[in-house]
């Protein structure tokens, strides 16, 4: 398929980006990897008169640690994140997830920020970033504001980002000693049918758990029913309570039968995957937050 003609802009600074956006308003879209936007343009689902390439905007690049947070710039690709020594050392479970996104070509071109901004429900990053309590920094001509990942995706293809805002960076708390996270997914297609993310946080010998589902709803879903059922239960005793809690919680998820599978099949996947993710997270926490996968 071919693209409807548009005018291309390649600004070198955020000021220039906002100036161009201000001039063209709704008729302009920003992109970096283009792996999501170009598909939608080719399918004629979206149409813009102006495309603004962000790849030359240095303010949006880089991966670094600031204090107790890993900071991923909006231009970082999934491939760069997966292979970054900084990410692997400080937030290993997220590096592992990045290596599992789509295929190598999408990882080489596509950015995490673009993935989040597009908010396609069948996406890997949001559930784990929610479990990790990540924050998105949005920038606009008026300044910056921070939005928790958990509150960013409102529904399918809809986020808390205003039209004059860009995602500048994604900030993920560094995984500390005694913490472990893991992501598990399954699907027959390129995108996950269901994803499940778990965190196990040990404080003075007492565990607390964070559990999130991805892809099965139109935004990431916190598995509060399971979290409540297993609150304070030591990791070694989880097999006594987790299977039933996971099954009951998954059965209550509102989801539709679609290309990715029937509703009850996806609920079954959710139950299985959340248990596997939590087992892996607990193991990683025991390894002092290292070697998460």
């Amino acid at each position, binding site marked *: 398929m071919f693209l409807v*003609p*548009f005018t291309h802009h390649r600004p070198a600074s955020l000021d220039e980006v906002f100036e161009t956006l201000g001039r063209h308003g709704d008729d302009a879209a920003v992109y970096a990897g283009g792996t999501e936007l170009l598909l939608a343009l080719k399918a004629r689902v979206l149409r813009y*008169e102006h495309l603004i390439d962000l*790849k030359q905007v240095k303010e949006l690049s880089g991966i670094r640690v600031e204090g107790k947070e890993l900071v991923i710039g909006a231009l970082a690709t999934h491939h760069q994140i997966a292979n970054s020594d900084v990410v692997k050392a400080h937030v290993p479970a997220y590096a592992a997830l990045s290596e599992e996104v789509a*295929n190598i070509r999408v990882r080489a*071109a596509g950015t995490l920020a673009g993935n989040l901004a597009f908010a396609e429900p069948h996406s890997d990053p949001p559930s784990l970033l929610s479990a990790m309590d990540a924050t998105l920094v949005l920038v606009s001509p008026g300044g910056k504001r921070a939005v928790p990942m958990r509150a960013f995706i409102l529904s399918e293809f809809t986020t808390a980002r205003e039209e004059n805002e860009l995602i500048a960076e994604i900030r993920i708390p560094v995984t500390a000693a005694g913490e472990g996270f893991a992501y598990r997914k399954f699907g027959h297609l390129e995108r996950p049918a269901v994803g499940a993310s778990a965190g196990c946080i040990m404080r003075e010998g007492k565990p607390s758990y964070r559990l999130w589902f991805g892809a099965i709803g139109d935004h990431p879903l916190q598995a509060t029913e399971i979290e409540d059922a297993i609150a304070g239960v030591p990791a070694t005793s989880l097999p006594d309570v987790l299977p039933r809690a996971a099954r009951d919680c998954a059965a209550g998820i509102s989801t539709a039968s679609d290309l990715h599978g029937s509703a009850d099949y996806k609920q079954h996947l959710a139950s299985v995957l959340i248990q596997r993710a939590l087992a892996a997270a607990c193991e990683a926490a025991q390894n002092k937050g290292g070697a998460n996968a």
Partner: protein
Amino acid sequence: MLDPTHIRFVLNGAETELTVDAAELLVDMLRGPCKLKGTKRSCDVEVCGACTVLVDGLPVSSCTTLAIDIDGKKVTTIEGLSQNGKLSKVQQAFLDHAAMQCGFCTSGMVLATTALLEQKPHASEAEIRHFLHGNICRCTGYVKILEAVKSLV
């Protein structure tokens, strides 16, 4: 409204300058003005890998890459792998193991394998399968392809 843009890039080792339209896709530029028909358009949605080319050494889907975005970069297509009429190691291995049936996925498979071996010269079978899982052989000739790649690590 066309938006012609002048781009400079290295195509299969040769400095190249072209005027492309902003909305032109890399696959159309390669198969059209560049006359390199080894890059195949198939699924058109970044899933199958038939249109794989290497940009600065990494595989990308040329069906979903703007031609203007390769300005200043190095692009390698299947036509750029052989040197002085001699096939590359990856091409030769695919030939020796008969790792192709209809051949439509072969350009992408060979280029993805070339990128994999650049990153991981001694990739394990699991790493090979993981890296190539985004390249689809619709004849299902995966066993021979895997044998060819394994012969190189």
